[in-house]
């Protein structure tokens, strides 16, 4: 049985842990709000881009000289998986759920005899994938210096992916990230960006109404790389919001658990204190009676 001193120390240390997790929860809540605002602000652009793309792509995908970014290379032998995770842990299952999805996807592809290449964004995913899929890594984007997810970050990632595509390093690219639904729910998502996937149900009929300057193909060629950057950006923002949401609920749980633990330890502490007092009393009384 632990001594009174031990119990007191443990209560003290759990209390300070609770303070830390409480503080982390509040920081995550503040960051989450900011991340959500950023995601909100980026939506109009992404929506417009998607609708224009849908119109253009609907018209162009039929033609024989559709750009490779849209039509693909004609094979799907080499897959690039862009796995986006966070730089920091202590965010519940945030990182492991992305990694699990990506690993599943990679194993399936490998089982089909395809080649898989992995580009990691964020340290945590890299660490988790290194053990069994480390030989498939082609590049890593370090986000530890990035304070706020800006479009320029997305652009440089997209640039990297595009230059690899142009060099013929892969046929299909898929993004892995957590889609933010709410603070308690983030859904790991795989999204194929190359060849471009045009959302079904988009209004493709409208494209015929527009005049294009310079030309339909010219605009499409300019737009496709941009649309990839936009999708990467959207994924990064969703991921940032999800990370803070996951951390917030994880820290909320941790704070609650710490509180429960403190209650339990306090009861144990009081019981053993009382037991010690009773024992001393009995010793004194029985000593007095013996006289």
């Amino acid at each position, binding site marked *: 049985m632990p001594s009174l001193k031990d119990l007191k120390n443990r209560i003290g240390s759990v209390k300070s842990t609770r303070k830390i997790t409480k503080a982390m929860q509040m920081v995550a809540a503040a960051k989450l709000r900011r991340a959500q605002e950023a995601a909100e*602000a980026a939506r109009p*652009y992404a929506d417009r881009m998607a609708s*224009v793309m849908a119109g253009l792509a609907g018209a162009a995908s039929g033609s024989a000289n559709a750009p490779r970014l849209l039509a693909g290379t004609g094979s799907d032998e080499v897959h690039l998986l862009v796995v986006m995770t966070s730089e920091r842990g202590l965010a519940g299952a945030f990182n492991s759920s992305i990694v699990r999805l990506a690993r599943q996807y990679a194993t399936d592809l490998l089982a089909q005899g395809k080649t898989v290449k992995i580009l990691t964004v964020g340290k945590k995913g890299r660490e988790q994938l290194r053990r069994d899929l480390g030989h498939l890594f082609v590049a890593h984007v370090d986000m530890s210096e990035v304070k706020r997810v800006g*479009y320029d970050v997305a652009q440089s990632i997209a640039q990297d992916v595009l230059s690899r595509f142009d060099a013929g390093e892969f046929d299909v690219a898929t993004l892995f990230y957590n889609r933010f639904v709410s603070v308690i729910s983030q859904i790991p998502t795989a999204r194929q960006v190359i060849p471009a996937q045009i959302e079904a149900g988009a209004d493709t009929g409208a494209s015929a109404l*527009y*005049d*294009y*300057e*310079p030309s339909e193909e010219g*605009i499409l060629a300019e737009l496709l790389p941009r649309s990839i950057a936009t999708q990467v950006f959207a994924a990064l923002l969703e991921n940032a919001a999800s990370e803070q949401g996951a951390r917030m609920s994880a820290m909320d749980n941790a704070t609650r658990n710490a509180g429960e633990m403190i209650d339990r330890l306090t009861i144990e502490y009081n019981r053993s204190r009382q037991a010690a007092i009773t024992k001393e009393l009995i010793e004194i009384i029985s000593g007095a009676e013996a006289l």
Partner: protein
Amino acid sequence: MADTMKFDLVSPERSLASVAATEVRLPGTEGDMTVMAGHSPVITTLRPGIVRVLGDGTDLEFTVTGGFAEITGDSCTVLAERSLPVQDMTQEHFDEMVAELRARHDAAANQDLPGPAPELVKLLSDMVAMGTHIGLDPTQASL
């Protein structure tokens, strides 16, 4: 005459303007154009330059570094890659933009690719022209 249309200027990070306008002047890749309400639907790419929005009592100017514009009869939407109101455009921002473009230009030149270099030269000179237009010094000598 005061027919207005809805003007939106959005960049990837945020929406910069959403106002009613009677006239929008755009720096199109193939030449400047003025859009008024009832314009036939056009999608055009933009070169670096200044978008000017004239409306009922509004006169806004924005710098854009490229992007595209979607024009329908009753709306004009500019999707800019990077955009700033002209009054917020400082020498610092401008230098940064020019430097970025120059880096891309130099990188392309080093690779000796026949393709994109002339386009980048044009982009760079457009950018420099835009800077001089609003009274900023392109510091580095023009091409």
